[in-house]
């Protein structure tokens, strides 16, 4: 079965672009990724797209060329990029196609998401009672985690401060102003223990990745990065999840734990080998919990690790080196491909001011979203 290589990445920086359609941003990201790979669009065999706001990202072919290729759109909330990468990987592994484009694009214009609870299998009264909100779930999840494992609110502030610090040295970030832990703690309390500056915001942007059969990667690049595995999982009965009206007392791990286990196993790589991680930091609490869920540390070790700077760019296991969701915002369909863009950029040693001192060999990207789906990808160079 062919290995899969990433030979090009492209990013339309995340932020606010009034009047600029999502598909236009998507076309720009696609062009950048193709140019980075040195691949002509007419040589691409298939494509996969992901977006929340745009039902059919494949419509981008009107902008980048009507070549007739198969172009499948996928959507799994915040984990969309995981599903897209998995599908692309499968198509190359089957040998039917050799070169593919994976594209994410979105445009969320201000404010939180609104939706019909019944479209998420939640009852109508759940929405009427004001419970159909993702952020309050994150507050409840980290509050219990802090209780069980002694994580402090100071640790949450440190995570957010790191995100803004990384954003400040990333020319493509949305939030480019460093914020102190004090400023973060003093900002408005949104969902105890999470303050305003501990959250990311929905925004706009696009990201693209060109993948190919690893056997032909050398034609395009001297620095291929290999997509070793992608695993996606939904929640099991007993996991405490978004939009859950109830949860079982029997406790089972979160879907990220299941996805990570499957991804490590498929890659033949253990979490102790990971040198850089991109984790879903919808808020600072999520980054803390996801560190343990993907096996980078044991539950409760985060206080000391983070206080010691282990997750900063010069630390032992840098997390969200480009500022993550907190500094980049989250255009849902594109967010996970921004993670891959950053891993590839670091693994190629091209991250500029935010380059890790030692170019990493093994990276992990993790996504989590409503209504309880996770994706974990392992990359190596």
């Amino acid at each position, binding site marked *: 079965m062919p290995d899969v290589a990433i030979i090009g990445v492209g990013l339309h920086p995340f932020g606010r672009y009034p009047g600029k359609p999502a598909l236009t941003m998507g076309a720009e990201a696609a062009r950048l990724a193709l140019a980075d790979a040195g691949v002509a669009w007419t040589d691409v065999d298939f494509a996969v797209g992901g977006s929340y706001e745009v039902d059919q990202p494949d419509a981008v072919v009107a902008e980048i060329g009507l070549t007739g290729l198969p172009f499948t759109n996928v959507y799994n909330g915040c984990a969309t990029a995981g599903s897209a990468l998995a599908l692309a990987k499968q198509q190359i592994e089957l040998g039917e196609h050799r070169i593919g484009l994976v594209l994410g694009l979105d445009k969320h214009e201000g404010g939180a998401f609104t939706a019909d*609870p019944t479209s998420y299998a939640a009852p*109508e009264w759940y929405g009427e009672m*004001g419970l159909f909100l993702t952020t*309050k779930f994150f507050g409840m999840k980290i*509050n219990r985690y802090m209780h069980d494992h002694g994580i*402090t609110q100071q640790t949450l502030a440190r995570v957010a401060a790191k995100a803004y610090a990384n954003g400040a040295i990333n020319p493509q970030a949305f939030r480019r102003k460093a914020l102190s832990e004090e400023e973060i703690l003093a900002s408005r309390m949104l969902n105890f*223990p999470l303050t305003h500056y501990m959250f990311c915001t929905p925004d706009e942007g696009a990201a693209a990745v060109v993948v190919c059969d690893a056997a032909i990667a050398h034609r395009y690049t001297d620095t291929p990065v290999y997509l070793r595995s992608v695993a996606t999982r939904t929640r099991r009965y007993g996991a405490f999840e978004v939009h859950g009206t109830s949860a079982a007392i029997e406790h089972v791990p979160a879907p990220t734990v299941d996805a990570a286990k499957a991804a490590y196993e498929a890659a033949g790589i253990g979490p102790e080998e990971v040198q850089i991680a991109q984790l879903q930091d919808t808020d600072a609490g999520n980054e803390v919990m996801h560190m343990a869920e993907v096996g980078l540390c044991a539950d409760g070790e985060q206080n000391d690790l983070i206080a010691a700077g282990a997750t900063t760019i010069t630390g032992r296991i840098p997390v969200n080196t480009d500022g993550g969701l907190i500094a980049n915002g989250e255009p849902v369909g594109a967010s996970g491909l921004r993670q891959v863009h950053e891993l590839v950029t670091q693994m190629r040693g091209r991250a500029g001011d935010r380059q890790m001192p030692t170019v990493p060999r093994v990276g992990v990207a993790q996504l989590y979203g409503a209504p309880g789906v996770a994706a974990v990808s392992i990359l190596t160079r």
Partner: protein
Amino acid sequence: MAGVPIADGLFTWPSDEPRLIGGSCGRCGALSFPRRAGCPRCGASGPVEHLIGARGTLWTWTSQGFAPKEPFNGAIGEGGLGVPWYVGLVEIPGEIRVEALLTGVSEEDLRIGMPLRLVVVPWRTDDEGREVVTFAFAPDPDGQRSSETEEVGARA
């Protein structure tokens, strides 16, 4: 108290001792709330009605520092929810954890493990002028803290 429940089949009403109406799976025995067409654990159809215990403890909680958007239809402020308001996951011992609004609490006295009891509270006045009621959990002065009350961590 009178009033129309916010949804049918959600809690026993009218009642002096209302109970939440859950489902119990005939195949695997898993409980769920509310009762659905299928079992959330094994997928078997037709869980049977199971009245959930009215007393429990707080498993986790958070505050809600901003008013929710549609489809929220309750009142905010005077006579309604305060801002911030509070929501928690309430563990009914040996049964299930239920997500619910918390009433009669403040950030200062909320503690994981504190005893709570089910209450039915006014929610809104509907288009026909009827009072709509819903369920919430309130501090239970007669209850016991859960056995795992010790907080490992401290607030910053």
